[in-house]
């Protein structure tokens, strides 16, 4: 998987460089700016995750969101995803770490999807813009889609 990413990036970077040198440097500058702006937060989240994973017993994590957690695990992941706010660059590495601990894909999917589409914390903003009724409907339907998608992932990966 990593090799595809490395190859793709290198090829595109070379093409971009041949076509327009200035634009390419601008792209690299943008990339560096983004990396440096998330650097501290990223290390923080990783430190927190590794602390959590080594101090919370695996049985406990498995009990809540593991393979046998069933509908409760799904609801827990959906709830956690709906109320938290974190950028993708934090959520997906977190998902990958959970995956390494044997947490099923559909639980991770329920979490990342509700995180992306259901906004508990951003609700006031949405309410202001769309009105209460429409904002609630939109978030409710998003939650429903997150549930459906998680179930499809469960089927596809045979978990």
């Amino acid at each position, binding site marked *: 998987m990593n090799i595809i990413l490395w190859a793709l990036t290198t090829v595109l970077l070379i093409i971009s460089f041949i076509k327009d040198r200035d634009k390419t440097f601008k792209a690299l500058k943008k990339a560096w700016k983004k990396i440096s702006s998330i650097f501290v937060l990223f290390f923080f989240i*990783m430190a927190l995750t590794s602390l959590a994973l080594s101090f919370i017993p695996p049985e406990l994590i498995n009990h809540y969101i593991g393979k046998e957690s069933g509908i409760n695990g799904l609801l827990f992941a959906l709830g956690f995803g709906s109320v938290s706010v974190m950028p993708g660059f934090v959520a997906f590495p977190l998902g990958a770490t959970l995956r390494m601990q044997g947490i099923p894909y559909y639980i991770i999917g329920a979490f990342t999807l509700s995180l992306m589409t259901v906004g508990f914390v951003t609700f006031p903003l949405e309410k202001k*813009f769309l009105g209460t009724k429409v904002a609630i409907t*939109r978030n409710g339907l998003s939650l429903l889609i997150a549930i459906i*998608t998680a179930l499809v992932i469960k089927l596809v*990966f045979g978990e």
Partner: protein
Amino acid sequence: MNKNENKGKKKYILIIFLILFFVFLIYSYIGDYSQGKKTGELFFQTIFGMLKIIPFAFILIGLFEVWIDRKTVIKHLGKDSGFKAYFWVLILAGFTVGGLFTAFPLADSLRKKGASLKVIFTYLGFAGIVRLPMTIFEITFLGVSFTLTRVLVTVPLFLLVGIILGAILDKSDFEFNSQS
């Protein structure tokens, strides 16, 4: 100004936490504290794993932002209608950075340019699920098959929701509150 100060403070707290974290790791290795050593192992294992991915993912995102012009897409969206409009909305959502905070003002300006509520609500749905930088991250960390399944299920469903919600609201006198 105040917001920036708050941000600076937050960063400061995070850095102090990280320093304490590293002190804890060093003590754990010196004192042979197994739980702490496990923490360190997990931490460095993940960090090295990420270092192989993150720089490349961000370079891809940078290239993408430099080469793709958002304005061209918006121009198409004003002109094309029907099926094509939904296609452009999908592309536009791919370029959305910053989530809902940028999606709402954009939705408002699309409305002013004459896009239908069906198209706009589809855009708001898509903006949550197909943002490209985010999707690049998703693929690199959770795998192509996971992301592909996720995209193939969510895109049609959000299209459906956008069209139905937009159609219902088109009939009422719904308008965006652009003051916010």
